[in-house]
């Protein structure tokens, strides 16, 4: 019987390239190269304006067998720790209640990022022409699947073993009303999977992973440990053991286009856009989660940012590429200002909009206020005194009839949503890099908080048409919207989110919100 063409090709290839006698992983890796995989004329559905070189390497020389063995050991260690010793010592109930709330946000949002990274790296696998580069991307596809499960699992673990499960177990259903969700989808979804393939790689790998996973997945474990959470270091540091290969993938993407003429035309703009896109969300949100979502402080967020983002990512990744024409991101000055102030601005707004969230927030204590003022001189006069006023008006008490959003309305400080990043901002009451810009397009007004997003919007306005909550719920009463958007617990009336983390404190219900008669209005209509 005649053998198939494929079998004959494989037989011939093996005859020409005999398998190595030993099975050392890197010998197998070298042997596989002799098959001269040819993707030079690769056709892809996901095009790029750059020409990716055909000889780019994968830096760890991974073969499937070693990859699978390695990841299996990682999972055994992680799940073994969680299911054995951490459960036995009741670790989930030792977490400080404030940090328990932060992990609702961090893990749920990271899960979305990991999920979208599966698609992003699948796209890059399709676009690349170098066999080893494809191999690197393929490994990353599998990693991202693992990470999606890990993030889901940590929420499952917190919900099952820990305290106040609401928000760990059902966060995603609140995605229509939560003002942080859409911005998160901009960085963790749109930025990774829409548009030019190499630009997506710069967003995901060179900036998202090489830069922001260090505070998001590594530094976060210091804050977790300090606040009694030993589950997060177990899971997140295991996630990060894959990220080093992803960072290498991002670097090799740059290597693959370094000699392409298009790089000199586009790379710095694409890098700046990616840096601004990622920092615009991660900088304030992570800072807010670390500082305002913890009881025990590790260090000021601005120092964490300065170390991991400015000094190390900036100097070691971007600075070293200077001789290949890579420039310091033009938006860095504004990003640094955001790293100092924007998380304070965001917490003020997040606390004011607390009923729309899926996690509990709490006002800074006197001791924390002193810490903020010592580390961010000027903090009290801008933020602290507002929190004192809110507290005095009973913002934590359901019978007070006071929601902090009323303070913004009474003092004529409208809150807008930046059309590009989807991050809320209050231009008349902020210290971060936010100024109001309004443009009209197709009969609709669009607000922007900064020149960098505005520039991205001007180049492709159709990309940024996402409705924000003020447009979506214009004229609707808040308790109706919360009920419709699944912002309540299993009793059908108590809000998932609460303005305090006090276990003995009264919980707000839909009736408490309804009595206040808070109605959504779109601030752009008043302009």
């Amino acid at each position: 019987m005649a053998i198939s063409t494929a079998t004959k090709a494989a037989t011939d290839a093996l005859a020409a390239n005999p398998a190595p006698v030993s099975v050392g992983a890197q010998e197998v890796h070298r042997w596989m190269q002799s098959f001269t995989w040819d993707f030079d004329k690769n056709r892809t559905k996901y095009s790029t304006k750059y020409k990716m070189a055909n000889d780019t390497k994968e830096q760890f020389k991974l073969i499937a067998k070693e990859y699978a063995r390695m990841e299996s050991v990682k999972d055994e260690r992680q799940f073994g720790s969680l299911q054995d010793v951490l459960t036995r010592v009741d670790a989930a109930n030792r977490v400080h209640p404030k940090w328990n709330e932060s992990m609702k946000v961090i893990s749920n949002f990271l899960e979305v990022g990991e999920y979208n990274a599966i698609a992003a790296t699948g796209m890059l696998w399709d676009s690349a022409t170098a066999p080893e580069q494809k191999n690197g991307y393929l490994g990353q596809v599998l990693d991202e699947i693992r990470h999606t499960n890990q993030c889901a699992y940590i929420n499952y673990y917190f919900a099952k073993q820990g305290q106040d499960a609401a928000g760990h177990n059902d966060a995603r259903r609140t995605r229509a009303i939560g003002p942080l969700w859409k911005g998160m989808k901009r960085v963790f979804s749109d930025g990774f999977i829409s548009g030019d393939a190499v630009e997506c790689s710069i967003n995901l790998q060179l900036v998202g992973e090489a830069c922001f996973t260090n505070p998001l997945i590594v530094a976060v474990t210091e804050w977790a440990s300090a606040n009694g959470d030993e589950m997060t270091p177990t899971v997140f540091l295991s996630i990060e053991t894959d990220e080093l290969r992803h960072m290498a993938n991002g670097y090799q993407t740059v290597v693959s286009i370094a000699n392409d003429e298009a790089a000199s035309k586009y790379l710095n703009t694409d890098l700046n856009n990616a840096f601004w896109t990622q920092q615009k969300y991660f900088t304030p949100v992570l800072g807010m989660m670390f500082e305002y979502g913890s009881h025990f402080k590790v260090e000021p967020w601005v120092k964490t940012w300065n170390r991991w983002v400015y000094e190390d990512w900036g100097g070691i990744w971007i600075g070293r590429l200077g001789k290949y024409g890579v420039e310091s991101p033009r938006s860095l000055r504004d990003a640094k200002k955001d790293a100092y102030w924007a998380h304070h601005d965001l917490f003020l707004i997040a606390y004011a909009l607390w009923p729309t969230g899926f996690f509990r927030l709490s006002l800074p204590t006197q001791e924390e206020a002193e810490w903020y003022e010592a580390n961010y001189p000027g903090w009290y006069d801008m933020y602290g005194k507002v929190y004192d006023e809110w507290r005095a008006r009973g913002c934590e008490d359901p019978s007070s009839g006071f929601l902090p959003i009323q303070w913004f309305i009474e003092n004529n400080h409208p809150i807008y949503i930046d059309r590009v990043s989807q991050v809320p901002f209050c231009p008349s009451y902020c210290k971060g890099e936010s100024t109001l810009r309004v443009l009209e397009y197709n009969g609709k007004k669009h607000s922007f908080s900064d020149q960098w997003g505005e520039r991205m919007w001007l180049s492709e306005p159709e990309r940024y048409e996402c409705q924000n909550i003020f447009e979506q719920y214009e004229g609707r009463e808040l308790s109706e919207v919360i009920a419709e958007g699944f912002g309540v617990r299993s009793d059908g009336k108590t809000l998932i989110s609460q303005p305090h983390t006090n276990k003995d404190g009264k919980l707000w219900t839909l009736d408490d919100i309804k009595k206040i008669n808070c109605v959504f209005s779109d601030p752009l209509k008043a302009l």
Partner: protein
Amino acid sequence: MSKSSNAYNAGIMQKHGKAFADEYFAEDNQVVHESHEVVLVLKKSDELNTVVEEILLGSHKADNPTLVVEDRAGFWWLKATGKIEIDCVEVSELLGKHYSVYDLLVDVSSTIGRAYTLGETFTITSELMGLDVKLKDLAAA
């Protein structure tokens, strides 16, 4: 606390309040500055604790005086000028079991710099691998 310029809280990080802000917002610090340092984050584990304590801070401490290792709760944070290398053949001998470079990668959590493997050696370097320096494959036997 280490006084090395590579320490976790070196330089500006030792400053507080207004002094920190003044330097952070200084004109010279509004652009990135090229750095020849590398950073390695190692997840704490039975094997990695041995690598850190017995090799990097033990038998090989003199090899790289710029290396700083700090305990950051769940992980070891390492920073050095130039490069950090870990030879897994040596780690195997110390552990008394086979321990390949891929076993090491089970607990290597993050890298800032160009990390790669060659044979049983893991390296993270400030060199631009693939641009200034070619990435090597295992030599043919």
